[in-house]
């Protein structure tokens, strides 16, 4: 009796063995330089040049929450790649970049519309609006929520539908009216995923920035993360960070805000 699982395994075994052999060869070729330290280090030195070969694109993410005293509010997320629009306009004319397919304008529109549709179907979320400015490469999504945890649920759905990557955190906010608190949850590290990326893909994050704005109807009594700037009227918080610092957890995003 042959089991399909075993059959699958047999195929995998052949494939793995082949892949292993290529890996072996690569390993051995790198071993070849063991006795050739000059060559080994020459190659390593050459890699130092690499950052200059990639002229990076930069983008900003703006994440805005406006929370009312009754727990309802408005959420907006903006992806602004306007600073790199000349480069993006050139990339948009290409088929692939760094070995990956360049998405067409229509594909991006479909994804955003699909995301908006999923958001609209999420309980507690209403007034979902999208805007796509392909001249300036600015994408916006905004909505109203009954309570802020609805956003977590919406993001979770986007992730399960593979619209958001598995790296994107979803359980971001928790609000307690009784405790008069809003918690911005800790985001688990993406370092492992980032390390797996190719050099060229990593470069994308080099100048990328993240801004989080939280505005409240109530006055802020205290907060646990001093990286967030408190506005003079004590009704808004702002965090500016390099996305790379967040990925590598050099800067923390979590914060617990207590209201008066």
């Amino acid at each position, binding site marked *: 009796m042959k089991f399909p699982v075993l059959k699958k395994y047999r195929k995998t075994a052949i494939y793995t063995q082949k892949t292993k052999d290529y890996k072996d060869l690569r390993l051995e070729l790198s071993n070849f330089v063991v*006795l050739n330290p000059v060559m080994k280090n020459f190659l390593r030195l050459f890699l130092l040049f690499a950052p200059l070969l990639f002229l990076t694109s930069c983008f900003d993410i703006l994440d805005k929450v406006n929370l009312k005293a009754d727990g309802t509010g408005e959420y907006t997320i903006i992806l602004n790649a306007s600073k790199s629009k000349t480069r993006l*306009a050139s990339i948009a004319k290409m088929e692939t970049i760094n070995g990956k397919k360049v998405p067409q304008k229509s594909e991006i529109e479909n994804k955003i519309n699909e995301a908006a549709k999923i958001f609209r179907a999420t309980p507690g979320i209403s007034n979902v609006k999208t805007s796509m400015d392909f001249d300036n490469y600015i994408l916006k999504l905004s909505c109203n929520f009954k309570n802020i945890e609805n956003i977590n649920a919406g993001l979770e759905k986007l992730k399960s539908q593979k619209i958001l990557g598995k790296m994107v955190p979803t359980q971001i906010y928790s609000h307690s009216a009784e405790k008069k608190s809003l918690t911005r949850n800790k985001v688990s590290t993406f370092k492992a995923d980032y390390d797996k990326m190719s050099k060229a893909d990593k470069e994308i994050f080099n100048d990328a920035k993240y801004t989080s704005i939280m505005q409240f109807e109530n006055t802020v009594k205290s907060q646990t993360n001093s990286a967030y700037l408190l506005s003079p009227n004590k009704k808004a918080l702002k965090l500016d960070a390099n996305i790379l610092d967040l990925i590598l957890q050099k800067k923390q995003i979590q914060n617990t805000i207590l209201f008066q």
Partner: protein
Amino acid sequence: MKSILFKTQKIILLIFGFTLVFAQNSMKVPGDAVFYMEVNGKQLNNKINWTKLNPLLHELSKKTKEKPSWTDYSKTGIKYDAVQYHYASFNDSIKTYNTHFIIDNKEKFQEFVNSVKKKGLEVSRKSNYSYVDINDGAFVAWNGNRAVLSMVSYTKPYKNLWNIEAVTDSVSVATDSADAVAVDTVYAEEPIKPFDYKEEIKNLKDDIKYLKENIKENNLEIAKIQKDIKYLQKHHKYPKEKEEVSPEYEAEEPEYTDSEADKAYQKEQDSIRKENYKIVKKYAEGHFDRYFSSNLDVEAPKEMLKFRDLNSDVFVYTDYGRIVNEGIYGKMTKYYTYGQIFRNMYNSNYSYNLYFDKDKVRLINNYQHKDAEIQKSISSVYKGKKNKKLLELINEKSVGYYAMNVNGAKCFDVMYSLLQNSGEHEYRKEMELIMETMRIVLDEEAIAKIASGNGIFVLNELKSKTVEYTDYEYDEDFNSKEVKKTKEIAVPNFTFAFATENEGYWNRIFDLLATNKKLAKRFSKKGNFYTFKGEKNGGYIDQLFFTVKDGVVYLMSSADNILPVNQSDISRKWAKDSAKYPLSGRLDIQKLLTGLDKEFKSPSERRTLDAIRKNVGELYYKTEAKGESIQTEMNYIIKDSSENSLMYFFDLFDQIFKTKESEKKSPIL
């Protein structure tokens, strides 16, 4: 007297005979080696300044996770001022890379080997050499004054992957015949059975069962989605319990973990690894035996050394034809009906001579097609005429240029010679007919008149362009506001021009583009120029200018580029030089980096850029048909700051490395 003479003659013959019998032969580089390299250690060693290089190498080895195993790389026991030989070959199952070098301090070398070898592995002693496995599949062997590094990788050929014929493992051919018996029995457990239709039916039934399982899974998923659609149509939302989707999927995974199949698979892999290791070890031993019983000289076939220059620092030969045609692509093209065309195309070899001169690095490459007839037609393409009008565009103030003076009409001959003999057996007649039809349909002369083979691309400069972008600013209550800002970017100012003997043809094309309803919005005519306007914010080039003048078609980023510029003496000299070669070019990297200055913004990028810009040189390139090959010479002209071009690179890398290191050490604010 006669007997004395006879005896003397007999003794001489015997001695001579013995000499002939016992004379050791040199170690021959296999004729099917795809890569051969000679490193002229004597010359290179004189160019390396170890006192400068050692600290740098040491710094770099500190960065690896392992502890630095060696402190002075100039004293490894390897005789650096002797020639090193490298060669690689492969067949359907074995890939090898061998390096032969001389050692001048056996003890030191042994110490060095001990520092790099895998822990716990012992040195094996043979009658005339010792060897050790320094890492999986990498072996090093040595005697008093010679050493060999041999890297071997073995892949058992699998049937049905590409090859439908019975699998023959070339290991038996490649290894010593005595060893081969031991080697091949390793895989004797999989004998090729005669075709059994009953078993095949059973297998096919299994396949159906497996596919049906998939159908079941897909049908379940479809039913689930249909249910969701109906629910959404009725309630306009998902049922509550459906919101947590992910745990369901996660629960499916453990099916495969820790199963019997997994263990069996692991066991199978372990045994494959073990057997593979036995094979590669046997193979490496065979290689060492052959080498250490030879006269220890390495001799490459004449064909590989055809373009070797004994004065070069490094010489490399690659059998491009074999690498492509015998590699995976070759297996692919074998099964295409007209795959032979590609096999014909790749069937060539490349030789490289590298020189680290005082003021420049020089790389001379010789390309040669293995088929003399095809090579002849390729060479004929590289015999074009010069075009004065185009050469006038060469200017020393530009960032760089790439000029072409080939014989366009001869390209057809190359195409025909590639098609010739590319149809195997049953397709021969078809191929001949295709060629004949092409000859009738294509009017080679008329086509060559449209673009005769003279062209030039000049990167005049990198200009700064102000572009607007949108950013967000915040008031004191952190209310965001969209604001327009500007920034400078580098855009190329270039000219591309090519000669034509049929101006009317190009004018008709441009006229058509300018009058076509769809294209006229972007493509228009203003005076003598046709202009193409890109999309709003359409990238680096806003407008392109086209014109045809004095037998030259111009495509430019600025209409001014066509205006005549007085050539300086240097520019004229460059133009004269360019006229001599079918392909030639220059690139002033310093000018290029100055133009790109605005693209480097972060302090780290700027520091690295400054370090490079200070020392970066100029590239010069030329190609011509020489002898029975196409020769390309590439020169990288360095700045005078270093003792020679080899140390120039180390100096440059050292500077960049130090810049990077100092950045890491500086405190994060």
